[in-house]
């Protein structure tokens, strides 16, 4: 009762604080800003918060909070636009939405998918806020129960989702996930700094690959290239079909699924250090595992949209708990949020929850209110924005590519970002072509650093405890919590393997000659073999063991698949090659020719810097590929470049320079 006595007045105070007109104005400003940033593919919470951070110092705390919270709350909602409409994850929180959302858009049901997604987001966000309200007092012991062994187990649970996303040939899923894990180890090791598959002569690699770039490369580039080759609108029917009312009904029919996913979101969000990038996959995986009829997953099942979208908004509420109680961010955007709080003169931590309870509840309820406003706005807008799918894609693609290149460059502000983007994009194209699960690759990549870090740290602590006594060691590893998660993981793998055939990224599965799939697999095998050899040369045990073990397992998978390929006929599913038949093979434009446009952009960027390169690229693309007149091409180009300059100006960012800039001092934006 004591708790309520302190909580209730604080809640009341928080409500009066939020509903002051000035705070509402800042909240709406944050929502609008978040909405416009979230819509752009690849730009998420970190970009948005960084944009408002310079203005935080000296702002009134409640106003500044309203602005930031409004922005954070709406991004997992609005990033759905690009996941559903373009097949490009709007941010790392809606990667799983692409799996079913994009096929729905292709079928012409974009508005339905969007409406269901927004309702789920709204519901998840509100649920997250309610849980946050009640939990803020009792969360502390719960969070402290999650030690390193438990976090490691949660990470493994996340990895077990690979089983269900592995696709037709489970071995390929293992190889894809292994490659993702290995890609995540590139660079200086987190613990000891040993170099893995990199050298100090290429400083870019030392820091490893960035999630934004891998996400964009693995999903966005293959989809853009594939759609470009068709030279058609995204929605083949050319209509929006079932409207947003249908989407809301769909959500209502699956409200239990939505609730469950939201709870998954809150729970995963609460655990600090785990990050939010897994939550959508876990929710998606469980949705498939528990569904009765699974045939449609991966081809446009509305439940595949509802589950991740309910969880990723709820996660923000959950993620605020460790951020506020411990001052430890649960995700990248929460880290920036924490920086913003510091600039407002608030330092989150135990004392903030105890002494600044009204401020804490202001944050919680701003989050809820922003969710309502954001989802409402998105639903109203979805009808119009969904029309994007009816535009001829050739006219849309260059702009998308421009935004993606810009977004990728934000991660490290190095030309290496663009090289990595194209390189990973190429890998993504091949993975898609030969039917290797791209979600599996991405899950592996996302969880790689965590899996390695938690495993190493838990191992160090356990070893130290075992040195003292066996009992102390076992007490540490085998807690009820970690055993519980282990059971869940085993169940998830078991159900996953049984049902993985039901989730298909590509519907038709043409098989062709053996040569191309075998060559691709040999290349993968060679890369993994080199990685294993490279890892074996590392002297520091903690830095070598993870890539070594994962590499050897992956290598075993590669050899097993090679043997299977040797023994089976050309019609075996191992030889799936999208270029051998179906819509890709019949596309009017060739793969290499389409890809060379982007290589051209890269080469021109190396010479002239991105801005000049973009001008040339857009102009030539619209003229030659789009078949527009010179005048129209120039206008289209000018519009695009003006937009990106505006965006860069607002964000205060530069563009990648080229050789030209090394010799001449040019004014911004050409610098």
């Amino acid at each position, binding site marked *: 009762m004591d708790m309520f006595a302190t909580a209730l007045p604080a809640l009341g105070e928080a409500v009066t604080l939020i509903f002051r007109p000035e705070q509402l104005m800042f909240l709406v400003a944050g929502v609008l800003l978040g909405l416009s940033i979230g819509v752009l593919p690849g730009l998420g919470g970190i970009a948005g918060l960084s944009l408002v951070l310079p203005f935080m110092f000296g702002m009134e705390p409640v106003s500044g909070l309203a602005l930031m919270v409004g922005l954070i709350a709406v991004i997992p909602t609005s990033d759905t636009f690009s996941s559903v409409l373009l097949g490009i994850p709007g941010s790392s929180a809606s990667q799983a939405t692409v799996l079913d959302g994009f096929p729905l858009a292709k079928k012409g049901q974009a508005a339905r998918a969007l409406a269901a997604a927004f309702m789920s987001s709204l519901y998840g966000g509100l649920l997250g806020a309610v849980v946050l309200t009640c939990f803020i007092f009792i969360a502390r012991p719960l969070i402290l129960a999650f030690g390193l062994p438990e976090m490691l187990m949660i990470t493994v649970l996340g990895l077990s989702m690979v089983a269900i996303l592995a696709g037709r040939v489970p071995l390929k899923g293992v190889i894809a996930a292994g490659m993702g894990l290995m890609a995540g180890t590139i660079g200086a090791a*987190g613990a000891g700094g040993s170099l893995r598959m990199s050298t100090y002569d290429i*400083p870019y690699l030392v820091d490893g690959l960035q999630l934004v770039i891998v996400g964009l490369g693995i999903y966005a580039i293959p989809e853009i290239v594939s759609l470009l080759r068709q030279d058609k609108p995204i929605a083949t029917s050319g209509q929006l079909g079932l409207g947003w009312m249908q989407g809301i009904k769909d959500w209502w029919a699956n409200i239990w699924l939505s609730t469950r996913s939201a709870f998954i979101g809150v729970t995963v969000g609460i655990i*600090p250090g785990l990050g939010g990038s897994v939550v959508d996959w876990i929710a998606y995986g469980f949705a498939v595992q528990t569904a009765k009829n699974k045939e449609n997953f991966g081809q446009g099942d509305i439940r595949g949209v509802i589950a991740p979208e309910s969880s990723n908004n709820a996660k923000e509420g959950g993620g605020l708990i460790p951020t506020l109680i411990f001052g430890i961010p649960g995700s990248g955007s929460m880290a920036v949020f924490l920086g913003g709080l*510091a600039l407002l*003169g608030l330092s989150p931590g135990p004392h903030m929850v105890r002494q600044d309870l009204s401020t804490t509840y202001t944050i919680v309820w701003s989050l809820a209110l922003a969710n309502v406003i954001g989802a409402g706005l998105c639903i109203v807008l979805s009808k119009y924005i969904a029309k994007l799918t009816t535009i001829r894609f050739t006219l849309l693609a260059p702009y998308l590519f421009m935004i993606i290149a810009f977004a990728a460059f934000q991660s490290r502000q190095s030309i290496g970002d663009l090289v990595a983007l194209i390189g990973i994009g190429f890998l993504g194209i091949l993975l898609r072509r030969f039917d290797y699960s791209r979600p599996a690759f991405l899950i592996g990549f996302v969880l790689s650093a965590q899996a390695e870090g938690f495993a190493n740290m838990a191992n160090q602590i356990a070893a130290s405890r075992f040195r003292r006594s066996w009992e102390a060691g076992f007490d540490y590893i085998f807690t009820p919590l970690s055993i519980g998660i282990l059971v869940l993981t085993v169940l998830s793998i078991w159900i996953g393997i049984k049902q993985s055939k039901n989730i298909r990224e590509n519907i038709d599965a043409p098989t062709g000659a053996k040569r191309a799939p075998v060559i691709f697999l040999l290349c993968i095998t060679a890369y993994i073999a080199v990685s294993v050899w490279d890892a074996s040369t590392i002297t520091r045990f*903690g830095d070598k063991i993870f890539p070594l073990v994962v590499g050897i397992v992956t290598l075993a998978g590669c050899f097993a698949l090679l043997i299977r390929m040797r023994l089976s006929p050309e019609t075996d599913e191992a030889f799936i090659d999208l270029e051998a038949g179906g819509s890709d093979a019949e596309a009017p434009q060739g793969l290499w020719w389409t890809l060379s446009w982007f290589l051209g952009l890269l080469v021109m960027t190396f010479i002239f810097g991105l801005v000049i390169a973009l001008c040339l690229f857009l102009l030539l693309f619209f003229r030659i590929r789009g078949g527009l007149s010179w005048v129209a091409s120039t206008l289209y180009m000018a519009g695009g470049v003006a937009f990106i300059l*505006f965006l860069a100006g607002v964000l205060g960012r530069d563009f990648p320079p080229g050789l030209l800039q090394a010799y001449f001092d040019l004014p911004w934006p050409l610098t």
Partner: protein
Amino acid sequence: MSMKLKALGMIAGAVAAATASMGQAQDLAGETVEYVIPFSESGGSARWANFYAPLLSEALPGNPTVVVRYRPGAGSTEGANWFQEQTTDDGTLIFGTSGSTQFPYLLGDPRVRYEYSDWQPVLASGTGGVVFLPPDLGARFDGDFDDLGDEFFLYGSQGATTLDLVPLLSFQMLGLQVDPVFGIEGRGDGRLMFERGEANIDYQTSSAYIASVIPLVEQGLAVPAFSFGALDENGLIVRDPTFPDIPSFKEVCEATAACDTEGLAWDAWKAFFISGFAAQKMVYLPGTASPEVVAMYEQAFRDILARPDFAELAAAELGVYPQLTGDGGRSASDQATKVSDEARGFVLNWLNEAYGVSMQ
């Protein structure tokens, strides 16, 4: 929203104008000063830079816009390598470093392609740190570590070549059996390990200690053992003025039988303590900046430090630590970026023997 965008647009315009026209050095009116830090938006350096940026804007002649730019990467060495190549000479570019930039430089990290002596320091800011124990071990700590020599300690560490070098070396000198658990990503994670009971010794820098550990101390969940101390004007280690009730490492070392405040280990500890804490964060101009520009920045920082409300502003954001400019800043920078070959050799040898870390 639209007002916000308008304001942002104006800044964007100012950026364009600033780079287009190279104005006069002594007056930065209408210019934009880029305050680059080699870290991300979330760390302590961002907080520090964002604290000084608006003050600088008021203090510099012509009141230029001062924007903080973030260039994180490779433990801050990437940003520092970038700054090394800059030749801006009109005062529109300044660079903020921290202990994480200093240590790789001092240890001869192969990633380092920058040279501190090429740059011109205009500000040096100090900070401090406090080591604390769980209550059961704290009860056995009586000003010295003599009774804790046979205890097994676990310590969450970001890596032996980061700022954690100083506490790790302290533990080693005190004769403690500490197993560092490498691989955490920030000191906050270390504190969380401590709160979960997985680690049983930890340290936090001053601002984090005030915000997050003092509440634990008040609840009886943590006991402070020692602060690293502060440097007085004679170059001696004294109690940290922010924590006058907590003994300094020097006091605890003197009281502990295993620990010596003379000799090679002590000299090395002191050298790295100064670099990592006493002059932890510094502001530099490129080597190409003219003497007038340097003088202009020194004057601006002097004006900031002389503001009547500075002590109050700084206490909340930075703690009670020396903020030095002019000759004081130069000598602090000198001390922070130079260690004797003996001290370096000692630390490199110790890192290799204790943790298998080498700098090749």
